[in-house]
């Protein structure tokens, strides 16, 4: 009690989600060493994520600074972390029967997935520049490797390498920007301290700070794939093993948008007038480029990649308005997007294992022959296109509501125009599945066998696949009709921002 050194008090209860994930990670690495335990790895991964989710639910109302204020647990981090953990658990289930995991060794694959989840959860809690960067790298680096795990396919290796190079470039830009903000705010790293430093120093329009904001924007834009920093997205989405794509499409956006919200709405709050127009321009570009790019794709994964670019543009609107309502709408939209993407990619995985192809044309006649592919895919596409009665429609309504409220009507119109363009490609998928008779085997000349899995359980009997797909599809419809529970959940994120900015 009378020692000279006083360690910072650690709130173990609030840190418990991270601890659960870290313990799980270590345990999985150990199973890789002890061969007989290998089969336990998927269970362990799910268990540790479930425990982490349980801890988050337990800590749901907590608002506290942890570890000397470098981490923060509040409504924003708990809601986003829970969604990330859902994505992680589903990814483990999707990957269970996947060939990619078998090639690199299942425990290794899962360890990387879990460390990526760990990094993402930490990122949602990041409350200073150092954790911001550390957590970002913590989730990115395993993700680069995960993309390359389908060793047989050159496309997968290429995706990993491409993601690594472009991702590193993004990280470097981000770090550079952080250094400038650090200088501009008078040597502060904590988000709230930065905000105070910027106001006190009177450097709001200082070019150093503006440059820093610009570079951080670019760095984050790389991560959430906002145009014109999106070029990696379609290639990586297509090249990566589909369970990995399913995971990263939702979870990466969640993690990056969490820190996007926290950093821009808290640390850069005094600068709102400086960055909102920049972001609005980026959002417009993203919506335009993403939607136009998606129009001509023949691979469903590439199309979803471009659609992800456009969707990131819509989501950015939630940041631009700089209100709690905006964050609520963003969170709701991200949750809906996660469900829609998990349904779409899940259906695609089933389809791939049956036919070995991810081309849109190969889905012909699925409405007759494979309901487990056709229905979830239809619901997901209608949701992404923003048609009622899906959560995607209401998500757009909420975003537009937040925009109109702050007089950003022109951006709302941009979203609407983007949505119109997007109908053309989302509905093409639906049309192919329902309006044509099944294609005779091999007729489209694209049964390349590359992704074909023969033997074992047929994919539509694989409960690990079917159950999450069904739950995700039902959720898309359910929250489109009864949005209130999800909206309440999402509004915790907005409340957290509100209590941070006062």
């Amino acid at each position, binding site marked *: 009690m009378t020692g000279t050194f006083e360690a910072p008090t650690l709130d173990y209860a609030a840190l418990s989600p991270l601890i659960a994930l870290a313990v799980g990670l270590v345990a999985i690495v150990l199973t890789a060493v002890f061969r007989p335990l290998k089969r336990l790895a998927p269970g362990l991964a799910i268990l540790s994520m479930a425990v982490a989710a349980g801890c988050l639910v337990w800590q749901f109302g907590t608002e506290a600074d942890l570890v000397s204020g470098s981490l923060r647990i509040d409504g924003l981090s708990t809601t986003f972390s829970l969604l990330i953990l859902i994505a992680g658990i589903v990814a483990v289930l999707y990957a269970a029967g996947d060939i990619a995991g078998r090639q690199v060794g299942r425990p290794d694959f899962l360890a990387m997935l879990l460390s990526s989840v760990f990094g993402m959860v930490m990122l949602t809690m990041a409350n200073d520049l150092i954790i911001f960067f550390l957590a970002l790298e913590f989730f990115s680096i395993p993700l680069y490797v995960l993309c390359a795990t389908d060793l047989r396919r050159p496309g997968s290796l290429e995706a990993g390498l491409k993601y690594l190079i472009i991702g590193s470039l993004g990280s470097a830009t981000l770090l550079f920007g952080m250094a400038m903000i650090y200088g501009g705010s008078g040597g502060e790293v904590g988000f709230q301290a930065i905000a105070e430093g910027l106001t006190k120093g009177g450097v709001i329009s200082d070019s150093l700070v503006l440059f820093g904001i610009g570079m951080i924007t670019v760095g984050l834009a790389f991560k959430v794939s906002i145009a014109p920093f999106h070029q990696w997205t379609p290639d990586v989405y297509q090249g990566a093993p589909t369970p990995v794509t399913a995971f990263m499409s939702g979870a990466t956006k969640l993690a990056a948008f969490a820190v996007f919200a926290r950093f821009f709405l808290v640390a850069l709050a005094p600068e709102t007038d400086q960055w909102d127009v920049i972001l609005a321009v980026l959002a417009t570009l993203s919506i335009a480029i993403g939607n136009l790019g998606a129009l001509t794709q023949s691979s469903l994964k590439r199309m979803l990649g471009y659609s992800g670019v456009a969707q990131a543009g819509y989501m950015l609107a939630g940041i631009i308005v700089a209100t709690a309502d905006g964050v*609520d709408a963003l969170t709701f939209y991200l949750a809906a997007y996660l469900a829609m993407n998990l349904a779409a990619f899940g259906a695609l995985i089933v389809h791939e294992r049956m036919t070995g192809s991810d081309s849109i044309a190969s889905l012909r006649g699925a*409405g*007759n022959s494979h309901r487990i592919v056709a229905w979830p895919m239809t619901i997901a596409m*209608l949701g992404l296109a*923003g*048609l*009622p*009665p899906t959560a995607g*429609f*209401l998500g*757009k*309504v*909420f975003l*537009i*509501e937040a925009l*109109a*409220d702050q007089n950003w*009507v022109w951006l*709302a*119109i941009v979203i*609407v125009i983007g*949505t*119109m363009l997007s*109908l*053309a490609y989302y*509905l*093409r998928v639906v*049309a192919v599945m*329902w*309006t*044509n008779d099944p294609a005779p085997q091999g007729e489209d000349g694209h049964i390349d066998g590359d992704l074909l899995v023969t033997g074992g359980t047929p994919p539509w009997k694989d409960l690990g696949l079917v159950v999450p797909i069904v739950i995700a599809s039902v959720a898309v419809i359910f929250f489109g009709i009864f*949005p*209130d529970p999800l*909206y*309440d959940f999402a*509004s915790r994120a907005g409340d957290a921002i509100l209590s941070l900015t006062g």
Partner: protein
Amino acid sequence: MLSILLWLPLAFGLVALLVPAYRAWVVALIGSVATLVIAAVMAIGFDGSGGLQYVEKTPWIPDLGISYALGVDGISIFLVLLTALAWVPAVAFAASRRAGGDRERLFYFMLLLGETATLGAFLAQDLILFVVFFDLMIVPFYFLFGIWGTDREGITAGAATVKMLIFTLIGSLLMVVGAVSVGAFAGEPGTGLTYYIPDLIERGLGESYQNWIFWLFAAAFFVKMPAFPLHGWMPDAYRAAPLPALAVFSAVLSKVGAYGFLRVVLPIMPDAAELFQTAILIFAVASIIYGSVVAFTKLDLRLIIGFSSIAQLGFITLGIFALDETGANGALFQMVNHGLVVVPAILIVGLLAERFGTENIGPMGGLAKRAPILAVIFLIATMATLALPGSPNFIGEFLILNGVFQTDVAIAIVASSGVALAAYYALRMYQRTMHNPLPDGADDREISLRDGLIVVPMLLVVVILAFAPQIVLSDTAVAVEQAVAAFTEVTR
């Protein structure tokens, strides 16, 4: 009560998904009849002198002031009845022709989902709820037209449907922005959000907002109608659509657009409506002339009906934007009437196509000799279209023109020519199908009892309305008066 009415079709649609495929039509027919019965009971209990009735209001998304609010008044009551009525022959016709093909369950599910969505649009008293149902309407019809549609020369059913969907959703999505903006900007700042339409009317919307929000709504409604020049999707979609789905689509969905003007635009944005009145009237007249002229150049029966609908909806728009009671009453009457006539007309196209093997009037003719009853039924439908005195169309168009004459004489005179044009295309359609010699190889069977039972009841309603228009007009008067109250006060 209204919730039951609203969700009943969908409930039966879900049941239809579960029963064996060959039984699905029974479930669907029971569902549509049950809906009609409930709608009729509701209409009987409706008090013509009262305002909004059977109101149900519970919070839906309380944080944003969005509620699940339903209600009927004089504007919506007959459109709700029309919807419930139109679906019965459509389902019956589909059942008699096995229109669902090898996916009957899905077919009836989509058809009944369409009924719920359409009823929802007419019943919704919350602006966001209205937008939700308005957008939802198009989803089942996308599947109905796309899956069970016919590929035509030059365009597949799928492509035609995507075209339709993109056109209509452009409008609807702009309306989302409009609706949300109304909520955000109505009333004093800081009073909290509401989207309950009566509250929005009370709060009022600043004139500068009205002027641009007006066009966001107008775009949605004009595309849905469709009105010239936003009808680009119509010809292909009409040719692709399966007939039972087309019958309800043409009869009811097009009315939702016109209804939207009366429910949302006129009461909430009166200043803008007045400001842009002349522009809209000119659009409406253009629709009348264009629709009529194109209708008599077409040989395809579906297109004749489609383009004549453009003309009819032009009349309806004209009546609404006369911005007085007479015109609005006429417009509302005409909406009901056009819906009643179009369903049998389109189903008769199906009967003719079965006899001649084509829907093109070129090779048709001569049916009147051997099938006089069918000819008479078709004649009634034709006469009802061309506003012959003694038809309800005459009453509707008379009221509309009467209203417009008081606002703008020049436009009324030009619009009157539309009545003459209608006579031309309607009579041409009748002559080419029923008179002239019977072509070789055509089947000149009389209409069967079953088909008669499907087609005739709606025409009976038309005939009744012709002689007793007060049934409708007396109940609509109060609500119409309220809808145009903002304008009549100014002129008085």
